[in-house]
C-alpha cells in the first residue's frame, strides 16, 4: 500500500466537514430563503446601513483593544526578553498561564469585578467615588477583550525579541547609536513580524467575538459577532435569518482573509505563533 493513501480517511473527513460546509455557507448567502434561487438580496441586506454601523462599531472597538494590547504588550515582551533566561522563562509562563483558564470564566471574572456591587466600586466607594456604572459599557467590552487577548500579543513579540542576536544591538551601540536610536532603528524594525502577527492574533478574535460583548456589554452594544449569532439563533431559518447570517459571515470572512493576506505579505518566513 502506498503511503499517500494513509491520508484517505482524513481527506474524506475534510471534504465533508471542512470544504462542503464552506460551500454551503456561500450557497445560503447567495440564494433566497423561499425558492432557493440565486439572488443578491442577502448581500444587499447585509450591507444595510444599520448592519454597517454594527460592523463599524466592531472594527473600532477591535482597533482600540488591539492598540491597547500593543501598547501594553510590547513593553512587557521587551522587558522579558532582556531578563536573565531563567527569570524570563518563569515570568513568560506567568503571562501565559491565564490563557489556560476557560475563556468564559476569564470573562465572567470581570463581570464580578465591574458589577455595581463589585469590588472595584467598593474600593472606589472607600475614597468617596461612585458607585459608577461600569458594566454594560463599551469600556467593559474593551477591558474584556484586552484581558482575554493580551497574551496573544505578548507571545509572538517576545518570541521574536528573544531570538534577536545581542550582537545586532551591540553593533549599533559600537557605531555610536544612543539607546533611543538602538530601539527605533534596530530593535523595532527587526521585531516587526512579531508585532504584525500579534496584531492579527488580537484583532481577528476581537472583531469576531460575541460572548464578551454579550456578557460585559449587556444587550445594547451589539457587535458583528452578536449580529451573526442573532440572525442564526433568534431570527432563524424560516425568516431568512440563515441566508442573511450566511451573507454576514461571508463579509466577516473576507475581512479576516484581508487581514491574513496583509500578515502573509509582511511575514513570509515565520510560521506564526503557537500557543504552547
Amino acid at each position, binding site marked *: 500500500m502506498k503511503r499517500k493513501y494513509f491520508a484517505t480517511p482524513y481527506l474524506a473527513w475534510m471534504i465533508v466537514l471542512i470544504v462542503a460546509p464552506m460551500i*454551503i455557507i456561500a450557497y445560503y448567502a447567495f440564494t433566497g430563503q423561499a425558492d432557493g434561487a440565486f439572488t443578491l438580496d442577502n448581500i444587499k441586506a447585509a450591507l444595510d446601513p444599520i448592519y454597517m454601523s454594527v460592523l463599524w462599531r466592531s472594527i473600532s472597538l477591535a482597533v482600540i483593544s488591539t492598540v491597547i494590547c500593543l501598547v501594553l504588550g510590547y513593553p512587557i515582551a521587551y522587558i522579558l526578553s532582556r531578563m536573565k533566561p531563567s527569570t524570563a522563562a518563569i515570568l513568560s509562563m506567568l503571562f501565559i498561564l491565564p490563557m489556560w483558564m476557560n475563556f468564559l470564566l476569564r470573562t465572567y471574572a470581570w463581570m464580578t469585578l465591574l458589577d455595581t456591587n*463589585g469590588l472595584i466600586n467598593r474600593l472606589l466607594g472607600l475614597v468617596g467615588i461612585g458607585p459608577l456604572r461600569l458594566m454594560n459599557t463599551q469600556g467593559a467590552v474593551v477591558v474584556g477583550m484586552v484581558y482575554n487577548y493580551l497574551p496573544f500579543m505578548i507571545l509572538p513579540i517576545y518570541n521574536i525579541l528573544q531570538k534577536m542576536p545581542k550582537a545586532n544591538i551591540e553593533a549599533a551601540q559600537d557605531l555610536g547609536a544612543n539607546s533611543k536610536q538602538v530601539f527605533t532603528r534596530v530593535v523595532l524594525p527587526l521585531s516587526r513580524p512579531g508585532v504584525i502577527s500579534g496584531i492579527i492574533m488580537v484583532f481577528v478574535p476581537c472583531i469576531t467575538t460575541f460572548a464578551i460583548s454579550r456578557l460585559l456589554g449587556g444587550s445594547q452594544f451589539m457587535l458583528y459577532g452578536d449580529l451573526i449569532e442573532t440572525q442564526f439563533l433568534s431570527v432563524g431559518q424560516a425568516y431568512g435569518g440563515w441566508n442573511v*447570517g450566511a451573507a454576514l*459571515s461571508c463579509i466577516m*470572512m473576507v475581512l479576516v482573509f484581508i487581514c491574513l493576506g496583509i500578515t502573509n505579505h509582511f511575514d513570509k518566513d515565520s510560521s506564526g505563533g503557537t500557543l504552547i
Partner: protein
Amino acid sequence: MKREHRFLKGLFIGIMLVFLYAPIIVMIVYSFNASRTMGNWGGFSTEWYGALFRDRDILAALEVTLSVAVISSIVATLLGTTAAIGIHSMKRRTRNVILTTTNLPVVNPDLVTGISLMFAFSILMVPQGYTRLLLAHITFNIPYVILSVMPKLRQTSDSLYEAALDLGAKPSYALRKVVLPQIAPGIVSGMILAFTLSVDDFVISFFCQQGAQNLSTYIYSLARRGINPKINALSAIMFVVVLALLLLVNVISSQNTEEAKAKRREKKRRRMAAAEA
C-alpha cells in the same frame, strides 16, 4: 538612573501581572464567601462548593466536556497523524492544496466554522446533541494535530526509512520502528493541544449545543443570567487543576532534560576514560 529604570520596569511588570491575576484571585477568594453578593464579605464558607457538587447540570456538563475532549483528541490524533504521513509523501502541488484547506478552520473565525458545521450537520441530518458536539470537536482538532506533526516529518530524513527498507524491513515495520519514534514528540504535543482546545472551546460548541451542554456553554447560559457564586467555585477548582497539571508537565519535562543531561555527562566521562586507557 539605571536603578530607577530597573525599578520602573519591575513595577510595570508587577502591575500587568496584577491586572492578569487579580480577577482570578478575587473569584477564588469570593468562592469562599458566605454572602451571595460579591461586594459583601459574609464570612468563610464552603457552601458554594457543596452547591456545585450537588448541581446535576454542572456535573453532566463537566462529563460532556471531559469525554468530548478525550475522545476528540484521540480520534483527531489518529486521523491527523495518518493524514500527515500520507500528505508528506504526496506531490508538492497536491500537498499544498490539502494543507491550505486544512488551515481553513485554523484561520477562519470560530464563529464561521461553528455556523458552517451547523449547516452541514442539519443537511446531513446528524442527530442533535452529543454526536454533533463530538464531530465538531474532532473536525477543528485535526488541523492542529497535522500542523504539529508535519514539521517533525519534514525534519526526519527519508534516507533512514529507505535504509530500513534496504535492510529488509517491511514498510509497515519501518514505519513503526523508524518513522513513528521520530515524530512522536509532534504527535504528543498535537494531542495535548487538541485536548486543551477542546476543553476551552466555546464558540463552535455553542452552535452544536442543543441537547448536549458542555461546561463552556453551560457557564455562558448561567453567566447571562448574572453573577452566580457557583461559577466562582467552579473557576477556583479549574484554576487549581490547570495549575497543578502545568506544574506536573513542567516537572516531568525538566526531569527528562535532567536525565538526558546526566546521561550525556556519563557518556562523556566513559569516552574520556576509554581514551585514557
